[in-house]
């Protein structure tokens, strides 16, 4: 029997690394975090557990009585623990795929293709970064905060949500040592103007060597503008409808500004999902 990465019979030369695998991962747990979100912990040896912050997997979601999802669904890695051989996801139940995913139970298995895409970059010279996220964006940014902490980089995490009750992962960010600022629609603190003030304050305090954002077009545009004004580099993790996740289908393109002032289309799955804030355009 042949295995995907078997030695090809006629292979003459050193094979390119097989750095993406379709792993049948064992479900350790899959539990509701609140009315909308689920948290899934998978046991997945090898490549999968090596995923870096900002990378994602393309997940096969099971069919249920009413839903027959066909394509896979892209999900950021919420936590990868190579030592434990585990990888975790935090996902919002929105449609057929995530409804199906929400039905899996401990002991089931789920096929996850990955790790895919490029993760966030952390410059070793940075002392403090600001991450700004909303909704599922927090799932993507959480492991970045931890990575930064591990590398001795200070993190201010601005978590935006409709209401305090809906802010997720506050504890997770806090535990990583990040300073957490919760902003909500409820009290108006999530308004761009308010967030801008917050960013300006952090910059003034020397807390913003780099910006990272995910989960909101409005907040991305804000961070991009503020970053450009102060010459602060930044990255954004983007989403787009996908099919393959591997750069094959060209479904997932978005427009980006090139350094020479043009726009060009890039695949979110392959050239991203993390892009330089400077090149990102409104979506």
């Amino acid at each position, binding site marked *: 029997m042949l295995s*995907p990465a078997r030695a090809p019979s*006629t292979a*003459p030369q050193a*094979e390119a690394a097989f750095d993406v695998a379709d792993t049948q991962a064992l479900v350790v747990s899959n539990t509701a975090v609140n009315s909308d979100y689920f948290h899934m912990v998978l046991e997945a040896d090898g490549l999968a557990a090596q995923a870096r912050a900002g990378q994602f997997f393309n997940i096969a979601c099971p069919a249920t009585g009413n839903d027959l999802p066909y394509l*896979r669904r892209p999900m950021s890695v919420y936590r990868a623990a190579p030592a434990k051989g585990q990888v975790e996801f935090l996902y919002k139940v929105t449609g057929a795929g995530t409804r199906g995913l929400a039905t899996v139970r401990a002991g089931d298995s789920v096929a996850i293709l990955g790790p895919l895409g490029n993760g966030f970059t952390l410059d070793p010279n940075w002392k403090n970064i600001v991450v700004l996220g909303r909704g599922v964006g927090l799932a993507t940014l959480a492991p970045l905060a931890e990575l930064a902490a591990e590398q001795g980089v200070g993190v201010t995490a601005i978590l935006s949500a409709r209401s305090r009750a809906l802010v997720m992962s506050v504890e997770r960010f806090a535990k990583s040592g990040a300073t957490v600022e919760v902003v909500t629609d409820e009290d108006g603190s999530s308004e761009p103007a308010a967030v801008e003030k917050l960013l300006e304050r952090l910059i003034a305090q020397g807390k913003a060597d780099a910006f990272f954002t995910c989960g909101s077009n409005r907040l991305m545009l804000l961070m991009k503008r503020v970053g450009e004004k102060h010459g602060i580099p930044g990255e954004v993790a983007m989403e787009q409808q996908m099919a*393959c996740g591997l*750069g*094959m*289908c060209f*479904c997932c393109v978005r427009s980006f500004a090139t350094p020479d002032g043009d726009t060009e289309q890039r695949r979110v799955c392959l050239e991203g999902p993390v892009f330089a804030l400077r090149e990102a355009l409104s979506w």
Partner: protein
Amino acid sequence: MVDLRVKIGRMTLANPVMPASGTFSEGLARVFSFDHLGAVVTKTITAELRGGNPTPRVCEVGQGMLNSIGIPSKGVANFIDKIMPEYERFSAPLVVSVSAPTVELFGDIVRQLDIPGTAAIEANISCPNIEEDGKAFAMRSRSTSAVVKELRAATKLPLWVKLTPNTADVAAVALAAQDQGADALVVANTILAMSIDTETFKPRLGNILGGYSGPAIKPIALRMTYQCAKAVSIPVIGCGGIASTEDAVEFLLAGATAVQVGTATFVKPNTMLEIVDGLEAFCQRKGIAKVADLIGAVRDTDMNVDKLEALP
């Protein structure tokens, strides 16, 4: 040992499994080695630079998907310089898919690709013919004849012609392509389709219409493969909804000499490998020495059956 080889004209493929154009790229080499494939087929390239269609370019519909990628292309030079070298390290022959908006430009691009490394040309004639009424060449026998004639004159490479399923009489188009010297046919491409979001009232694709692919179209592509294989004597390569060993066997039985796997690779990147292994296991179980013995082996005579055996 099952003999998995099949012959497409003067080419002998190690096995009958290859990717469908546009559903495959070097990226898949991060998952498995292309040495296991019967051939590799590139995304369609064009001479002109093209950006492709607006997003969203994909939507899921039932057990299939619609795409309106279009044919974004960075041109022939980029292909030869940047893409072709990526495939050099693999033993599987490289089939280069090409397209063009006119008969003449079809000839041009094929001439440019007559270089070492190109094992065969796959002419995607499901693209609009801008010299006539914008209908795809493969919609009609006449425009198919014209373009295949030009292609045949332009290259000595094995010439595969990929047909569209959106035509009324695919067998007639297949014959036209054979008559002008095609070495093989690929049957077929995506089926024109549509989906509308009932919440927003907007088409689900930025391009409004798109191509339907995946398991949902299999019975249609299979029927066309059967019709074409009956009509022509050159090899037919089946394509449309193939996702499992049984699907591949179904196409071989219907008369296909090889199969292309498209959308299934998006859903399960190892599908092609699984089919190669599965064909071997299938033949072994059935006591079939050569996979080529499956070609056209459908038992379609003496069909007046009225049997349901009792369940024991």
